[in-house]
């Protein structure tokens, strides 16, 4: 939601670029989810619970070593699951550093505490507490984001959703989430087409007022299309016998590897809590 300065690209180009980015991410996720790796072989429920069991101590720990250890676990799991480090670097590590790193940047200067360094010229004081707090923030965010990405990159989205039933998420919400994901790409596609066709018909620059009108009207058109789509989907569901009840097929099976990894996740989680709190 951060405001960005308008560079060379106009809002139409920027918006289409973010659509393409989302599609790319989804495409890559589906690709790696099909790869033959350690995480891919696990039962989605084990993965979901296991990853959450690592994220929570990463968020709760007061020890740098423990958070760094959890980060290392995530990196090892990624390596064993054929998740490319280049993608992790670009999508997670650098992205987090650019966002959270910038947010954490003033912390060493504004946090009260014992002064460890005076910045030359400006005379700003750097405190140990401030440095530690910036470190906590960046390390925590990197670790949690890596773990979360790991889950998504090694699990087909529909399996992630079905696994949510373990956490007692209502079946109707699981269905809604699944359908949302399905129609997300349809809506993305039609938004993308709208912006592309608009762009192809433009020969000059729009004034600010016109740009806002185009943006709001596009959103309005998209909303009308959305409603038509939901009606069509509804009729299609009804004609196939949908009467408002949702049933999910539970076809997951827990094997020996799953039990072993579940034990592993639990042990790491308990150890992280033990040493981290």
């Amino acid at each position: 939601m951060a405001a960005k300065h308008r560079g060379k690209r106009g809002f139409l180009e920027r918006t289409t670029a973010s659509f393409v980015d989302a599609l790319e991410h989804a495409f890559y996720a589906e690709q790696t989810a099909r790869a033959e790796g350690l995480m891919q072989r696990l039962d989605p429920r084990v993965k979901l619970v296991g990853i959450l069991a690592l994220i929570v101590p990463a968020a709760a720990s007061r020890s740098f070593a423990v958070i760094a250890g959890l980060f290392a676990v995530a990196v090892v799991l990624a390596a064993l699951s054929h998740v490319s480090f280049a993608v992790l670097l670009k999508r997670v590590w650098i992205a987090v550093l650019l966002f959270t790193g910038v947010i954490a940047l003033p912390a060493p200067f504004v946090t009260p505490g014992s002064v460890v360094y005076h910045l030359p010229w400006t005379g700003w004081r750097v405190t140990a507490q401030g440095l530690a707090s910036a470190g906590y923030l960046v390390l925590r965010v990197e670790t949690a984001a890596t773990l979360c990405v790991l889950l998504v990159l090694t699990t087909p989205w529909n399996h992630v959703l079905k696994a949510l039933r373990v956490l007692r998420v209502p079946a109707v919400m699981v269905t809604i989430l699944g359908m949302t994901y399905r129609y997300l790409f349809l809506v993305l596609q039609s938004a993308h087409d709208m912006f592309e066709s608009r762009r192809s018909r433009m020969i000059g620059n729009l004034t600010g007022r016109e740009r806002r009108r185009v943006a709001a009207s596009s959103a309005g058109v998209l909303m009308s299309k959305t409603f038509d789509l939901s009606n069509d989907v509804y009729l299609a569901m009804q004609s196939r016998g949908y009467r408002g009840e949702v049933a999910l097929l539970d076809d997951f099976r827990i094997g020996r590897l799953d039990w072993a990894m579940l034990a592993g996740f639990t042990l790491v989680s308990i150890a992280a809590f033990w040493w981290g709190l």
Partner: protein
Amino acid sequence: MHIPDGYLSPVTCAALYGGAAPFWYVALRKTRKLLFTRLVPLISVFAAFSFVIMMFNIPIPGGTTAHPLGVGIASIVLGPWASILALSTALFIQAFFFGDGGVTALGANCFNMAIVGSLIAWVIYRLVAGRSSITSSRRVVAAALGGYLAINGAALCAAIELGLQPHFFKSATGAPLYAPYPLSIAIPAIMIGHLTFAGLAELVVTGGVVAYLQRANPVLLRFTAPGVPMPHDEAQPAAMTGWRAARPLWTAVGLLMVLAPLGLLAAGKAWGEWSVRDFSNPGVRQQIARTSRNVAPPAAAPRGLERLSNVWTAPFPDYSPSFVRSAAFGYILSAMFGIGSIILLSVLAGWIARKVRPGPARAPAHTEEG
């Protein structure tokens, strides 16, 4: 405003999941009752729309662009409950699938953006739009204002949550463990961006979409304008917001939540709820005597009480002031207090809205025709 993992302490995250849960529950029940078989297709497709709208770059005056949240328009078209569900669904997919916003912070993000945002947008829109016709420009102003205040309300909640972290969660050396900036920095830092850029983007989108729908598809605006005749009227559907039915419940819940911390902080002891230690405390002894028609309590604690008091120790032993002073618990209390106040304010605003503009909120279709 999507808070990532690691910015909020697990205690805060848990409290905000807890704060969001009743709203999710009520929203699911209400929309299910109203939409029945339509619930799944409508909410899913609309959540997909909300997701996509968050990727729009909205040009704002001054030559920059910003992303809108889309909560204003969702709440105006769907009503607050369905909007809460659609936005939460979109936020869930953003958090899990696209890593936008944290998994542990999902409750906080849903609370701020989906719940607080939807309720503010809806209340402001209904209040300002009044009984104006579907195509009146007053509705555009109402929508724009609703969107602007909704995103700023959500941002303020996020700023408070982030700003509270360094006050309560520090390491042994005093280094903040989570978001490092106190309220005095967090609130202005976040609000300046939202009062200007992000707020304007939301204002443009909400007002602009309502203006567009008035021209192109006014039917979509009638859900949250019950009793207002359409340009080419067909049968009016019942309002999608069954707020009225649950109002007494919400008032009670809100009051309870606001009063609960007061009860815990109140001085003195409830009669008969004395503990072993109270019998040896001269101050409490005096209090017991005063409330027992001046009959002095026995010098020592009754032996049965003493024995039983060792059998089970509550997680919060006694209503001792020390745990109220404990940062984490005090914070949960204030969170509860805050949620309670929000509920009460929403109920109050809804009540005022009806007083200002008396009209049948759920009138049967045939009375609307003439």
